[in-house]
């Protein structure tokens, strides 16, 4: 008996019971369902929610693989015994460290989704498939697994389920999870010790008297905020050979993923483009303020303000956030004009927070969450504006 028919029999067996949604989900997750819609007119399209989610995951895979290589590469680099980037040494460390993050993320998240579906008696929704892949990519590599589990539980329940599940949430669940970690366990989410595997342990060894060199794995943003300069070449920043969260370092691969999303029409090019524009405008404003001499070297904002405006696109999580988080179709603006405004403000505010709040150097997370809250308001005014325009046209015609 094939797996499909086994699952199908299980589904039939549990039909009408409380556990039914769980078995239905397993069945549709792996195979196309046998039953079709009956009666009435309906549109047949291949890109259902499952297909949409899988496309995003495909776009994320290069970032994930790169992140695994980079984890080991940065680790050995910091230890002072560099290995080749594309080597088993660097990949194996990444694999051992990142795989548990993925398993915990999916295990806890999908577990809660199944639980809620059973309690509330609706079908399991695919919403967590992308979130579960995004989460391991936007956390530091050494994050303790129990913290991730707590944060995922919080993000899925408070960020999504209380609003009614997939498609009803106001905030991007993956960013809710990251924001929770960020405010709950700041020592694990910021600073110069968490971005390279082994740095925390090494710091503890030194604290207890071991005679070894400290591993410093400052992110570029952190280093710039302290006025130390980037310390990496533009090529390194673009291709991603820098410390940072697991999957967000390589702007190049994110760009490829973004193009893939635009090509498959899953992600909105309007949001991506306007967000980049917003960031560039804010960067230019800061650059011109510095050029005008209003901010001097002694200012604590000088380091980040004087960073060349287009470098902001390469460092930190800006590229990743713009391509994969800001374009979330549920929490972004829905109207085309609204998408331009929404995206522009995401980019604009990201750089603003990044520069003016050295304690929270990653502005893109907070900027997207903030704009998620305002997205419905933007849409409302865009729609109302359109209604007004057409009313005027109607009046002009009938008068």
């Amino acid at each position: 008996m094939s797996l499909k028919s086994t699952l199908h029999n299980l589904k039939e067996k549990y039909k009408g019971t409380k556990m039914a949604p769980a078995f239905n989900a397993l069945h549709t997750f792996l195979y196309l369902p046998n039953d079709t819609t009956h009666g009435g007119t309906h549109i047949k399209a291949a890109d259902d929610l499952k297909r949409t989610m899988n496309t995003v995951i495909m776009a994320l895979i290069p970032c994930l693989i790169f992140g695994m290589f980079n984890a080991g590469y940065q680790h050995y680099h910091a230890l002072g015994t560099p290995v080749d980037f594309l080597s088993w040494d660097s990949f194996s460390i990444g694999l051992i460290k990142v795989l548990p993050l993925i398993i915990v993320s999916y295990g806890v998240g999908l577990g809660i989704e199944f639980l809620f579906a059973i309690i509330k008696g609706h079908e399991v929704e695919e919403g967590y498939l992308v979130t579960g892949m995004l989460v391991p990519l936007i956390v530091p590599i050494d994050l303790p697994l129990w913290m991730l589990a707590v944060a995922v539980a919080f993000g899925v329940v408070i960020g999504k389920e209380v609003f009614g599940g997939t498609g009803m949430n106001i905030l991007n669940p993956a960013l809710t999870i990251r924001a929770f970690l960020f405010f709950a366990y700041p020592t694990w989410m910021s600073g110069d010790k968490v971005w390279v595997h082994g740095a925390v342990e090494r710091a503890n060894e030194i604290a207890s008297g071991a005679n070894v060199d400290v591993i410093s794995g400052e992110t570029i943003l952190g280093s710039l905020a302290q006025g130390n300069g980037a310390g990496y070449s533009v090529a390194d920043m673009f291709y991603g050979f820098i410390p940072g969260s697991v999957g967000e370092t390589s702007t190049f691969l994110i760009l490829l993923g973004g193009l893939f999303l635009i090509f498959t029409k899953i992600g909105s090019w309007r949001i991506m483009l306007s967000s980049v524009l917003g960031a560039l405008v804010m960067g230019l404003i800061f650059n011109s303020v510095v050029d005008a001499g209003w901010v001097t070297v002694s200012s604590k904002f000088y380091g980040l303000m004087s960073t060349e405006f287009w470098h902001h696109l390469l460092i930190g999580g800006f590229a990743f956030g713009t391509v994969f988080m800001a374009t979330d179709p549920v929490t972004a603006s829905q109207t085309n004009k609204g998408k331009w405004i929404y995206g522009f403000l995401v980019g604009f505010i990201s750089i603003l927070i990044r520069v003016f709040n050295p304690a929270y150097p990653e502005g893109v997370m907070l900027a997207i969450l903030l704009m998620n809250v305002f997205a419905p308001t933007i849409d409302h005014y865009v729609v109302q504006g359109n209604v007004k325009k057409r009313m005027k046209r109607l009046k002009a015609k009938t008068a």
Partner: protein
Amino acid sequence: MGLLSKKDAKLITDPLADNNPITIQVLGICSALAITAQLKASIVMAISVMFVLGMGNVVISLIRNIIPSKIRIIVQLTVVAALVIIVDQVLKAFAYELSKTLSVFVGLIITNCIIMGRFEAFALGNGPWRSFLDGIGNALGYGIILVIVGFFRELLGSGTLLGFKVLGDPIEKTGLYALGYENNGFMLLSPMALIVVGIIIWVQRSRNKDLIED
């Protein structure tokens, strides 16, 4: 109940659950968010509000027939302000550290909507004994939520309860901390208090479906 008639007892028990001032009427949220990072502060705040609301209700009820209705809000404010000043002075005299933690929020009891709400809705139309019970009941309802929120925020945020290190010592790495547990800093921030209150509302309404509006 020998002491209280059934009707009077309801004045105390109703606000505890099905007519709770915080979770059902959604009043007095500000202080519930601001001072609940520690259990001790929550308890003191609850007792202070109980004193002000109980006494205030009695005073307003006693003079309810001689207050000109046009200026009744001002009269009510004067009564609350007088009582709050007493609480504030007592706290400063006997628990100075705590009064610093509570800071401006003791003074802000004056603006707590629950108090003016009970004066308007109950004390102006009922006798002193029933008004007293109503005041105590509502303050208890307010206090119980404060204590629940304070309990979880202090336990998860600082790992302590009333200042005792119940989860072990985070610096010496004893108890849970030896296993790698860490305090949740988010719990100490006010947004988390809002979420905890929200969860209490969620639990309460899923237990008693009659409370769900719309």
